């Protein structure tokens, strides 16, 4: 007799996520994967390749482009879409951009509302998608801890935490009423460390911004801001300087700070994560603009 075969925790998470992806393709007419270019999206892409191998990824990728993403992110996005052979749809709220919407002019809340939330809802509607796959994890933030794998949205794309469907075993209920849609989170049970360990063992490509190197930044309090947009101006007394740093999470360049770091490989990043006790979302200015702000954004339709 051989000993009991057992999956390690990463392979158990992988098997669960593949199951979720396949349920989505089996039960929905027009699914789409939201592709945000970050590390979680990279893992999602790999899982989608695995779920449908030897076939292609059977849904398009949708990137909601605020036009303020880091340049390296956009390059990486186009390379990845080509290399996995998936159809990439890019959606931008052109009207808000031509009105000059940017965080310093309208505030971060309104900027996110127009360029991310509204743009996302418009993009989903334009493609007539009935299911949107996202890479959000429950360990990211308190209100996300109660998110379902299949998360129902009403006709306005909004989330009602009190109307969530119970999820038992691996039985996912994807039935929709008129106008309703669903957001699906195959990485629900993954933590930030799991994602990095998986990237490491699977050798998954990620945007180079995650790796430490000398970058020209403005040092503002605890934040290191990369000056990519013309409206990100230096304050009196500030001047751009070279700092060895990296991005812990990727978003829009004006609102995503870098952290000082020497971690230029995935194992070093994992080591840094284990030793730091700073949560990754702390550097995302938008989560801190009011108490419970992620929950409010989610109710309005944000991922």
């Amino acid at each position, binding site marked *: 007799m051989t000993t009991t075969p*057992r999956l390690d925790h990463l392979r158990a*998470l992988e098997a669960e996520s593949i199951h979720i992806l396949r349920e989505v393709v089996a039960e929905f007419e027009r699914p789409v994967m939201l592709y945000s270019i970050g590390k979680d999206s990279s893992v999602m892409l790999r899982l989608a390749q695995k779920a449908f191998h030897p076939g292609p990824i059977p849904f398009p990728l949708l990137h909601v482009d605020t036009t303020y993403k880091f340049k390296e992110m956009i390059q990486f996005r186009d390379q990845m879409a080509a290399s996995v052979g998936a159809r990439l749809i890019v959606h931008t709220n052109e009207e808000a951009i031509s009105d000059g919407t940017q965080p310093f002019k309208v505030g971060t809340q309104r900027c996110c509302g127009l360029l991310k939330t509204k743009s996302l809802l418009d993009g989903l509607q334009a493609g007539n998608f009935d299911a949107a796959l996202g890479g959000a994890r429950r360990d990211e933030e308190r209100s996300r*801890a109660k998110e379902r794998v299949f998360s129902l949205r009403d006709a306005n794309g909004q989330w009602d935490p009190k109307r969530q469907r*119970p999820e038992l075993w691996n039985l996912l*209920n994807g*039935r*929709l009423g008129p106008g309703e849609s669903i957001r699906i989170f195959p990485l629900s049970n993954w933590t930030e460390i799991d994602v990095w360990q998986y990237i490491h063992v699977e050798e998954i490509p990620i945007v180079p911004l995650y790796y430490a190197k000398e970058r020209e930044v403005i040092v503002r309090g605890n934040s290191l801001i990369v000056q990519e947009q013309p409206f990100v101006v230096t304050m009196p007394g500030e001047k751009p300087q070279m700092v060895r740093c990296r991005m812990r999470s990727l978003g829009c360049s004006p609102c995503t700070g870098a952290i000082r770091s020497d971690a230029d490989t995935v194992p070093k990043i994992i080591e840094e994560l284990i030793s730091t006790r700073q949560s990754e979302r702390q550097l995302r200015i938008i989560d801190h603009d009011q108490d419970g702000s992620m929950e409010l954004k989610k109710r309005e339709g944000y991922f």
Partner: protein
Amino acid sequence: MAGLLRICTAGSVDDGKSTLIGRMLHDSQSVYEDQIHSVQAASKNLAAGPIDFSLFTDGLKAEREQGITIDVAYRYFATARRKVILADTPGHEQYTRNMATGASTADLAILLVDAREGVKVQSRRHARIARLLGITDFVLAVNKMDLVDFDREVFDGIRDEFDEMLTGARCHAIPLSALHGDNVITLSDRTPWFEGPSLLEYLETVDVSRDLTKLPLRFPVQLVLRPNDAFRGYSGQLASGTVRVGDRVTAWPSGRSARVQRIVTYDGDLDMAFAPMSVTLTLDDEIDISRGDLLATDPPDVGQHFEAEVVWMDERPLDPARVYLLKHTTRTVTAEVNHALLLNQIGTVSVSTSRPLVFDPYASNRITGGFILIDTSTHFTAGAGMIAHAVRDGVAPGTTPVTAAERLALLARRAGSDADAIKAVEQALEEILL
């Protein structure tokens, strides 16, 4: 790391469950510093001590305002030995459904009681739901021991009462103070009479793996992959058992067999796969298999009538006059249930489905024995069911259908698909007419 441990917690309001979990996350360093700061800023519950640990887990604004946990929250922590997924389920009675949800995927349940209160009606209910959902490993956390001066007799009394309630299950009882951290991570000086291990040490080392790989193969087909004419594969996640290249498997409900030709994955073909892996199988014979079918070695039950324990989770009561959608493994059918249940009620019912299901009793396999009932108008997941046993064709034992019409109806019900049903009835009619 030695795999994944899935646990759920249950306790009544004010037993300090959220505080205990907050304490575990905090002390095992799974809570980040900025989360601590934002919790300190929001903490108004001064009675809970310098940091209100429950604020780590009570995520939604309504809960923070009402001070009760109203929805199941998932938490994660990793020790050097294993990764833990914790479903924090609310104790408030009207949310019993969430307790069932959390327990459905858990390997172990932590039952929390207040040392001053002892075993309450709620505690019995939680233990019962956990047992019903198939949990056989328990931790009894007797909390607020500081408020009874760490009195051993109080602890022993509660432990004995639970031992009686949990006959047949394994239970490790621990005297705790979640607020002060006694016996949460390390053993406390204040309970010299307690031999341990502490809560976290127990969770790190307990071997609960119900061995899915020792059960017969159950492979519910999720998708038929046909990327080109040369390839036809059946994708799914092994619910139990193992499968090897060359194994003869039978597709149910059709009952047709073939040999496994390849076990395909993105990382290359495998010789063997085991539960809970997600793989794609190809067979050496082109038999008709679609989503909702199940590949198995030993035969499962196949039928349209069974008895089940059902937990009702919807405000709108279970109505025997209505038809529900029933999702079981990867198959969704319509179903009728023989008697009414109210929100949070648990009952034994008879279920009849429009098409056959391929199943096992829940007690032997959670995945092929569990199902959900979906309201056809609201689409809410209204009920959770655990199959007890098959009832042969809905006919009381000893009786057989007599009229031609009854026999035709039976043929149609036994068929694997509508197309099969039409074919079977056509054939039978031809025989009668000839």
